[in-house]
């Protein structure tokens, strides 16, 4: 069916098959930040925002996104850079494959909760798997970020 997607402010109209997955569509359109990790919505590396809400794009049909606003990390580079400074200062991005999904979770989190506590942060990020870091460093980085930004 004919769909129109608005991705990071750019409009794309094309014909999608009923079973096309948003992850595939986005990668095909060149949004390579959206990674494929598991095909079962359980690792978080393909997360994006659809109408401002965090979704794993591997479990979202492209046709469902018709006329919706889609945000990938390509569309929020400056906002991400601010958080990313804390992540890279801690050296915790390691292989980096999970980072874009992780960042999109944070973008959604800070949108939904103005001054989150570390407990809320951990709860929100529970679905963002990372096999390299052990999470401890991510939490250090985010605690530092909150300390500055929660004031």
């Amino acid at each position: 069916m004919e769909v129109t997607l608005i991705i990071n402010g750019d409009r794309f109209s094309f014909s999608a098959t009923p079973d096309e997955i948003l992850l595939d569509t986005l990668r095909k359109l060149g949004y390579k930040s959206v990674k494929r990790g598991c095909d079962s919505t359980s690792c978080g590396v393909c997360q994006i925002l659809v109408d401002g809400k965090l979704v794993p794009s591997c479990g979202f049909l492209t046709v469902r996104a018709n006329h919706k606003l889609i945000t990938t990390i390509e569309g929020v580079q400056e906002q991400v850079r601010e958080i990313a400074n804390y992540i890279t200062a801690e050296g915790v991005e390691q292989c980096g494959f999970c980072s874009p999904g992780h960042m999109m979770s944070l973008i959604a989190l800070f949108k939904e909760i103005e001054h989150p506590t570390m407990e809320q942060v951990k709860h929100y990020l529970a679905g963002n798997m990372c096999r390299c870091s052990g999470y401890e460093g991510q939490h250090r980085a985010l605690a530092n970020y909150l300390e500055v930004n929660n004031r």
Partner: protein
Amino acid sequence: MSIKTSIPKVDGMGLVLGKPAYTDDLAPRDALIVKVLRSPHAHAKITSIDVSSALAIPEIKCVLTHENVPDHVFSRAGQGFPEPSPYDARILNKTVRYIGDAVAVIAGATEKVVDLAMSKIKVSYEVLPAIIDFEEAMDHKVLIHANDETSSMFPIGHDAKRNLAAQYEMKIGDMGQTLDSCDVVIKERYFTQAQAHAMTEPHSAVAYYDFQDRLTIISATQTPFHVRRILAKNLNIPLSTIRVIKPRIGGGYGGKQAIHGEFFVALVTQMTKRPAKLIYTRKEVFTASYTRHQMRIDITLGAMNDGTLKAIDVDILSNTGAYGEHALTVLMVAGSKTLPLYNHVDAVGFRGDVVYTNLTPAGAFRGYGAIQGNFALESIMDELADKLKLDPIELRRKNMIHEGETSKIFEVMGEGTEGTAMTVESCKLEECLDSVLTTLDWQKKYPRTQVDEHTVRGVGLALAMQGSGIPYIDMASAILKLNDDGFFNLLIGATDLGTGSDTILSQIAAETLGVPDDKIIVYSSDTDLTPFDTGAYASSTTYISGHSVRIAAERMREAIVEKANRFFKVTDAQFDGENITAADTVISLKEFATTLYYSQQQEQLVAHGSYVGTKSPPPYMVGACEVEVDKRTGRIKVLEYHGAVDCGTPINPNLARIQVEGALLQGIGMTLYEEVNYLENGSVFNNSFMRYKVPTRMDVGPMHVSFEESYEPSGPYGAKSVGEIGIDTPPAAIANAIFNATGVRIRSLPITSESLWNALNQK
């Protein structure tokens, strides 16, 4: 100064911002989609395979089967040469040996059409009896590699007629006599399971012919140079016609040391002349790549009543699955990277059999046998302490290795071959031990605290050691190039998997040259453009590749000074990293380099370094934890984990810390949650992240990692390795803590709530 500073990773910001950097991101847009038809049987012979209906689909460009691919027997292991793994695999084989073994490879324009074609391939199998239980495999009447011309490049104990991929035995001292002289002898049996690497990026490979007809492979690999060598040899094409590029990799942990999809995409491109890509599905990663070697470890300790350890004897049965990749070396590391911890013993015995089964092959995985061996050794040390009514800490202090000492094991056991004699010149085990005892508040918590009627807490601890590269085998090289404007390119074959090695090697170059970090622009892992490196494994990159960078940078300094001498017609020019001083003249490197290339004495300055290790100094670690057990349910919680590490000089303390924290979580995962579960027919039950449980951030309490710095004289700027050591301690430390909490000893991993509950209720 660059060393010992926590600069951010050179590639970090780009990765966090989601820039295209990984194999699938870099695949040509018109790449054919490649998929693999996999065996539904654990053991079968293909009697016929009809691909005509698949090939009749116009969008299908080629189908590979055992009938149209090169027929070589080789090992996918991705190790040095000569390879210490048996040659027992073919690109595609007439016999399939596990559920998931490759049967046919289909390449077409779209995923859909490839799926359709796959469904149209008709394969007839003669199903053979399979061996699923590794304890039954040796001398079984079913032979897994019966008539397949398997071989080994040198004696590794390979005997296909007994289902043996490899075998090893060594003895030091007189075991029988020593055990007879001991006051106490204890013998126990431990089991460790198959664990999945679960890296977030699946195995990925891309192939295409470039404009000069060079077969270019982009691959998520830890060993690009081994990939090139193995491909060339088994595709019957010259090495010079292949280029392997390693882009960014989404985690490896040993799982990407081997060849996975590279042959398939290379053959598709050879046959179709078109770009091709194969990205494993998550299910394929679980079922058809690698696992950790499952082991049964029998261990005997002999000691005197005062706690003097006299003998250690280890006998291992290891499960390599359908193919024998890393079979011998993982087995040997289970001994060589654990037994020297207690180096004062009179007798040591180590032997093991690595058997074939009809299961997913086992391969390299962080810890590489040491974690399995450590679980047994550091568990039984606590069991011995309990038997002797001694404090487990005092028992360890009395027997453990110290700086300035040696162990005969270093000389006898290497990885696949004999070892190298070595005196331990840096070892802060005592300090590591003191550190975790203090930070965990061990004295107050040992052995247990009763929280309430059902809830009890206990503390446990384990020592560990690892290595730093393989002596006389692991080799690395680096090239430094001075550019006009006074910055440098560092070209290295070393393979950054996300560990930050590109950054660490840049720091070593900057330190040696005396220049700021941002003057080093690093490019790594491209077999056409960068010099040789055996790859990222065996905890080798900082230690081995680091030396090659140091050597290149020292030579570059010399070259700059020599050129300055000629330039200014002096003999004592000085270079301080920023300026060159010659007689009365001071000129910046920037100005010097620009002049050098554009106007005077025009000559490019290039320096290279290459290094092969002559020893493998172990990093050391002590891991200690407090766990809480709910006796009603068997629920186990790791409340806190403390690790103190001696990795020599941490070149980049932040990156070293993350290596340890990440490895600790993988080790905790192996201890409490993770296991590749096989059904009776040999298929992997938990082949998705829905079912395979990797610990999340909600599962474990805080970790405290500290460094007890030492200076390793043989390492670059005193550094040893840190990549693997972090994974080793959790199994034994947690098992010991559970024993201290409950009085129940679990000798089989993973320690699940169910297994603990069962043990608690059998008491």
